[in-house]
């Protein structure tokens, strides 16, 4: 028999997720993305590369786009988190979500939540971006099916209406 492994003590974290205060016990090594998906059941945030390259896991932490696969849940204690599930209001899609719908900004949809969360954070800072600025803003988000043409058009569609 192997020696019993004693897991480090769990830590209680509290954070506001999509406007609701959520409190839970986590192991220190729990990644924010797993906390969101597995403990809160919000599976709209995806795990893609799991190495902070692809951006499928982007959520907002205190208003900034961050890669939740590279943040520990304990680091987000006290923070305000917004995920793709929290974007629509009263059944109305956010203009960026609508833009992806209207301009066919997705095929398989795997990268879409991260693309949208990155775009929403970007348009808050730069509401009237050039095409070049949009492409630079998407540096940390990878799409492996549509390419980026329609994603850029989707963001332009939203920028025109925000």
């Amino acid at each position, binding site marked *: 028999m192997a020696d019993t492994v004693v897991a480090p003590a769990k830590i209680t974290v509290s954070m506001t997720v999509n406007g609701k205060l959520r409190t839970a016990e986590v*192991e220190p090594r729990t*990644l924010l993305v797993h906390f969101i998906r597995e403990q809160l059941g919000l599976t709209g945030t995806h795990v893609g590369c799991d190495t902070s390259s692809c951006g499928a896991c982007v959520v907002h932490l205190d208003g*900034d786009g*961050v890669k939740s696969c590279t*943040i520990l849940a304990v680091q987000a204690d006290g923070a305000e988190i917004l995920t793709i599930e929290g974007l629509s209001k009263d059944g109305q899609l956010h203009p960026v979500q609508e833009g992806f719908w209207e301009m066919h900004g997705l095929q398989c949809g795997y990268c879409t939540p991260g693309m949208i969360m990155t775009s929403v954070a970007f348009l808050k800072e730069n509401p009237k971006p050039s095409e070049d600025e949009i492409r630079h803003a998407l540096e940390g988000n990878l799409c492996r099916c549509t390419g980026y043409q329609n994603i850029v058009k989707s963001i332009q569609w939203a920028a025109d209406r925000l």
Partner: protein
Amino acid sequence: MYPNAFEYHRATSVEEAVGILSADPEAKILAGGHSLIPAMKLRLAMPGTLVDLSQIDSLKGITVDGGATIGAMTTYRQLLDSDELASAFPVIRTTAKVVGDPAVRNRGTLGGALAHSDPAADYTAVMLALDASVNVTGSNGQRTIAADDLFVDLFTTSMEPDEILTSISIPAADGAGMAYHKHAHPASGYAVVGVAVVLKMDGGTCSSARIAVTGATSYAMRATAAEQALVGKALDADGIAAAAAMASDGLDLNGDVYASADYRGNLIRVLAKRAITEAAGL
């Protein structure tokens, strides 16, 4: 991918963090976590304890008064957004724009980058060229280490295991011209080669030149042969080309599957020429 299990402490003062580091040799500092957490997920790092610095207010903030003092926990995003820094040291903003991507820049910190001494980091070379120094605190008190003495090997600095990098000091630029040019790896965005240049002019003559290279060697280092070729000279296209041609002299260059040592040497010379030309205002 979960990292190995560890204990987590959120320190509220530098002294508390130093105390944990000195008592526990398995403890590591957690700054922005964008180098450490990926390394932990791959089991390249398996610290038994993490000490999170994010709640220590004294490690935050940017002060510009001729020179600049930058708290170690300042993120790339904050470096990018600071108009004061950009006006005193324009190269700090141009560099922030080419580190990682927007989400990475929201978390990664300057102190973390320097303490990590990643051979392909950007700010290691830029801080060397700016003649910056870092202020560190450990169980033996505080000391200041010049960037020239900080980076000593691959992922290795001259800091002691129980020392914490608290801030970065940059001397006044005194009208120096500065630039950072980088050839980014197309997938990772890290520097295959980056060259940072800070030039001071006295009349038409170059009075001081600091050129630093990253990405090509085990740690960021100065290109002294090219520096010496510039000082005391009037800067024209021929002089710059001659100096840039010496930018890889004396450097022990690394090669890998993406770029051979020879190719990196060529990139150093090409990027040095562009960066010197920009810094000289030509």
